[in-house]
C-alpha cells in the first residue's frame, strides 16, 4: 500500500472517530460516570419508620443462657429439640441422621460439630420431605451437611432473627435454604447445589442478608421474592439456569419486593438446562440468565462480575412478558426504579433466545446482549451504559446515585423483639379468648356462672388456678370441665386472678 493511500485511509478513520466523539447527527456523546465519587444509595431501610419495631418498643428480652444438649451418632436430633428450652443449643456430633427436625419454639440453636472434616450429616435418603422446619424466633442452624431430601433442606415459617450459615446442602428437592415470612435473618457461608428450584429462596421476608454463599448446579441460584430490604452480596453463583433473581411472584399474600441490593457477586456460567418442575415460576427462566428482575422495585445492581451467561447478563421484565407467570390484581406487574450501576459484564448473550433477538431488531441492534429489558419499567436508570450491549434501556435516565456504600447491612442492631404483653394482659386475653366460651358472668352456659366461681374462690386465685389445671366434677347438672393444662402455670394464675375480679 502506498503512503498516500494509507494517509488517506487514516484521515478517513480519524474523521470517523472525530465524528463519533464530536457528535454525529443522532449520536449522543458518551457519559462516563465514576463510581468512586458521587452520591450513594440511601433509599433503603429506615429503622425509625419500621412499624414493627416502633410498636414493640425498645425492650428486648435478653436471651437466657441455655444449656447444651449433645446428640451423638445414632441418636435423634428431634428428641433433643423436644427436650430443649429457649436459649438452648443442640450440638450435633459427626454422624448420619435420618430425620425431619421441626422447631416450633424460640431460641433454639442447632450446631453441627465438624471434626477433622467429618460433619454432622442429615440424609433424607430420597424419602423424607424436609430436613429442618422451623417456626420459632431466634433460630440458628450451622455446620450441617444436608442431602437427599424431597422438599427443602432448611425451611423457615415466620421465625424472626434466623441465622443459617456454614451448611453444605446437596440435592434437597425444591429449595436448599428457604426462610419464609421472617424478619431479620442471615443466610451466609453456605454451599448449595443440585436444587430443582432455588438454592437460596428468601420468600415474603424483611431485612435479610444473603452473603458469601456458593450456589451452583441448581435451576435458580439466589431468589429474593416478595421481600423488602435485602442485600445479596459476595456470593459465587455459577452453573445454574438463572443466577440471582429478584421477583414479585403473583398470587401470594405479601405483594411487594423492593429495596434489594445485588452487589459484588460472581455470577458466571449460569447455562445449565432448566430442570425446574413443570409450571414452577423458575421453569420459565431461559438457561443462561445472570440476573433476572421480575416486577421487583428499587433493585440496585452494582459491582457484580457477570460473565458467560448465554442468554443475557441481566434481564428485567414485567409480569406480562414473563412466561409461566399468572397475574395478581393486587400486585404491580412492573419493575420500577431499577438501578444498574457499574458491573463487569463480559461474554453474555452469546447464544441468546429468539425473543431477545427479535427485541434487539426493534432497536436495530445486533450482537450479544448484556442487558435486556422487556415490558414496562418506570423511573429506572443506568450508568455507563456504553460498556454493555443493551436492549430496552436506551431511554433510561442516568442514575443520580453511583454506589451503595452508605448501606452496610439491613440487619437490625438488635433482634426483632417479641411483642411484649404484660402478665396481667395475658390473663385477660386467655380469659376472654378461652373461658368465656363456656362461662358467662351471671347466666348459665356450658359451665357455671363466673359469679358463682368468684364466690367460691374469692381469696384463693392459686386454688382456682389449680382447679383450672386439674378440674374435678363438682356439679351433677353441669358437664365436667376439661383440664386447661395447655396454659402455662403463670398464665393459669393470671387467668384465675382476672376471673376473680372481673365485673360483668
Amino acid at each position, binding site marked *: 500500500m502506498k503512503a498516500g493511500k494509507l494517509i488517506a485511509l487514516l484521515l478517513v478513520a480519524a474523521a470517523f472517530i472525530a465524528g463519533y466523539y464530536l457528535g454525529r447527527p443522532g449520536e449522543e456523546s458518551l457519559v462516563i460516570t465514576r463510581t468512586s465519587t458521587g452520591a450513594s444509595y440511601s433509599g433503603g431501610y429506615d429503622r425509625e419508620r419500621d412499624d414493627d419495631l416502633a410498636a*414493640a418498643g425498645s425492650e428486648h428480652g435478653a436471651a437466657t443462657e441455655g444449656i447444651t444438649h449433645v446428640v451423638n451418632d445414632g441418636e435423634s436430633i428431634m428428641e433433643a429439640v423436644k427436650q430443649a428450652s429457649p436459649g438452648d443449643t443442640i450440638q450435633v456430633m459427626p454422624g448420619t441422621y435420618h430425620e425431619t427436625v421441626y422447631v416450633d419454639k424460640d431460641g433454639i440453636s442447632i450446631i453441627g460439630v465438624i471434626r477433622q472434616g467429618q460433619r454432622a450429616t442429615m440424609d433424607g435418603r430420597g424419602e423424607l*420431605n*424436609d430436613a429442618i422446619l422451623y417456626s420459632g424466633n431466634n433460630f440458628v442452624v450451622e455446620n450441617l451437611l444436608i442431602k437427599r431430601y424431597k422438599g427443602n433442606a432448611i425451611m423457615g415459617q415466620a421465625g424472626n432473627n434466623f441465622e443459617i450459615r456454614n451448611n453444605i446442602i446437596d440435592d434437597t428437592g425444591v429449595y436448599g435454604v428457604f426462610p419464609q415470612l421472617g424478619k431479620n435473618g442471615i443466610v451466609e457461608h453456605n454451599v448449595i447445589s443440585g436444587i430443582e428450584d432455588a438454592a437460596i429462596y428468601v420468600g415474603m421476608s424483611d431485612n435479610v442478608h444473603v452473603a458469601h454463599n456458593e450456589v451452583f448446579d441448581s435451576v435458580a441460584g439466589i431468589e429474593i421474592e416478595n421481600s423488602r430490604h435485602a442485600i445479596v452480596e459476595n456470593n459465587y453463583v455459577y452453573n445454574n439456569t438463572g443466577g440471582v433473581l429478584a421477583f414479585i411472584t403473583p398470587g401470594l399474600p405479601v405483594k411487594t419486593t423492593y429495596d434489594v441490593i445485588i452487589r459484588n457477586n460472581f455470577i458466571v456460567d449460569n447455562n445449565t438446562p432448566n430442570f425446574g418442575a413443570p409450571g414452577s415460576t423458575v421453569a420459565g427462566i431461559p438457561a443462561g440468565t445472570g440476573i433476572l428482575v421480575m416486577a421487583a422495585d428499587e433493585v440496585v445492581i452494582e459491582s457484580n462480575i457477570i460473565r458467560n451467561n448465554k442468554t443475557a447478563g441481566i434481564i428485567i421484565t414485567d409480569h406480562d412478558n414473563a412466561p409461566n407467570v399468572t397475574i395478581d390484581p393486587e400486585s404491580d406487574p412492573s419493575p420500577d426504579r431499577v438501578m444498574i450501576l457499574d458491573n463487569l459484564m463480559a461474554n453474555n448473550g452469546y447464544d441468546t433466545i429468539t425473543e431477545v433477538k427479535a427485541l434487539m431488531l426493534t432497536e436495530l441492534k445486533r450482537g450479544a446482549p448484556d442487558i435486556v429489558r422487556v415490558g414496562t419499567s418506570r423511573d429506572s436508570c443506568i450508568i455507563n451504559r456504553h460498556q454493555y450491549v443493551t436492549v430496552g434501556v436506551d431511554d433510561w435516565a442516568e442514575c443520580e446515585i453511583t454506589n451503595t456504600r452508605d448501606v452496610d447491612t439491613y440487619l437490625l442492631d438488635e433482634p426483632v423483639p417479641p411483642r411484649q404483653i404484660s402478665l396481667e394482659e395475658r390473663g385477660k386475653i386467655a380469659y376472654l379468648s378461652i373461658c368465656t366460651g363456656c362461662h358467662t358472668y351471671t347466666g348459665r352456659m356450658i359451665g357455671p356462672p363466673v359469679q358463682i366461681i368468684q364466690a367460691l374462690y374469692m381469696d384463693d386465685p392459686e386454688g382456682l388456678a389449680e382447679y383450672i389445671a386439674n378440674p374435678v366434677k363438682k356439679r351433677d347438672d353441669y358437664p365436667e370441665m376439661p383440664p386447661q393444662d395447655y396454659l402455662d402455670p403463670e398464665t393459669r394464675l393470671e387467668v384465675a386472678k382476672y376471673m376473680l375480679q372481673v365485673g*360483668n
Partner: protein
Amino acid sequence: MLASRLVQRLLGLAGLPVAVVLALVAVDGQGDAAAERTFSLASHCPPSFELRGNGCYLVTRYQFYDSVEGRGVGGTQTSLPPHRDGFSPQQIDLGRLLFFDPLLSADNSLSCASCHQPDLGFSDGKAQSVGIGGRQLPRSAPSLWNVAFLDRFFWDARADTLEQQAEGPLFDPKEMGTTPAQLLADLGANAHYPALFGQAFPGSERIELAQVKTALVAFQSSLISLNSRYDRYAHGHHESLDEEEIAGLNVFRSFVARCAECHQPPLFTNNQIAVIGVPEPQGEPLDPGAQATFDAEKLRGGFKVPTLRNITRSAPYMHRGNFETLREAVSFYNDGRGHAVPEGEKLYLHWHIWEPDLTEREIDLIVAFLDTLTDESLTPPIPEAVPSGLNPKAGFAGNDHPRNLEDN
C-alpha cells in the same frame, strides 16, 4: 370429644347472652305465636369479644404475635390480619335473628342459614346449594367461619366486603330472590323488627338496607374459630397433638405437600385466588371462576382458597362439592399437576400444584391433622324463634329434630 362437646352445648345454652325470649306462647300457627312474643337484643358481646364503649372487640391469643407486613399468614405464632369487629352487641344479635329468618327470602322459604348451617361448618352439606323454589345453584356454599378476617368473598372473589357479599344471595333471583324494596317492606311491616332495628341503630327512624347489611356483617364477624387443638399446639402446648397429628402437620407444611403455602396458618387460608384444575362433574362445562370477576384469562378456573378451619364439618369439598371426603380432596392434589384438566382447556395452574408423590400413609396423616383444626366452641345458638314467626331452621335437613336451639 365431639359428642361430649355437643352434649355440653345442649346442656348449657340457656344462659347465653343472646336474644332472650321473654314470653313463650305455645300455639300452632307460627305467625300468631311470633306476634305474641317479645324480642329483645343482647347487651353482652358474644364469647371471646370484649365490650369497649358499645363495641365488641375480638380477643385472641394470636394477639401475642407479629406478622410480616401485617398480613397475618404463615408459621405457628403469627398475628392475624386486620379484621372486622367493633359492632355493638345489639347489632350482632339482630344480625343473628336476621341470619336465621326466612323473611329475608322472596317466598319466605329460605334464610341465610339455610345454606350456612352451624352444624355443617356454616355450609349446607351439598355439592350445589339450593336456592328459592328448589333451584339448583352453580356452586357449593362456602363456610363462614372466620370471615371477619377475609377481604374477598364468593368462590370467584367478586365481592370485597361482607356488605357487598350480602347483596349477592339476598337479591339474586335464584338464591333468596328478594328485592331491596320487598326486604325493607317485609321488615318494616313486621311486628318486632322496627323496634329491634331501633335498639341496634339508635336514632334511626326507619329501617334502611345498610342497617340490614351491617347487622348481618356484625353477626358473621362473630363466627370465630381459633381455639382448636392445633391452636393450643401453636401457642406452645405441644402435647395437644399426638405424634401422628404432629407428623401430619409436618407433611401438611412440608414443601413436598405444600398445603400450608396456600392454606397458611393461623387462618389456614391465604385469602388468595388459586387455579388448581379441579374438574367439573362429567358433562358440565368448566366454571370460569375468577376469570369472569377480573376479566383475566390467566385466572380461568381460579377460585378462592377456602379456610380449613372446621373443615371436617363442611363436606363435600371444592367449589362444586367435587369430593365427598377430605381424603379424596387431599388425593386430588397428590394425583399430579393438571391431571384432571379437560382436554382443550388452557389453565394457568398455580405453581404450588405439582407432583408431590405422597405415600398413602402421608395422605392419612394430613387428614388426621385436619381434624385438629376443629373448634366449634363459639358456635352461636340458633334462635328458637325469629321475629317473622317462620322456622329458623328452614331448609335444614332433618329440621324436625332441632338441636342447638336456645332454651332447649
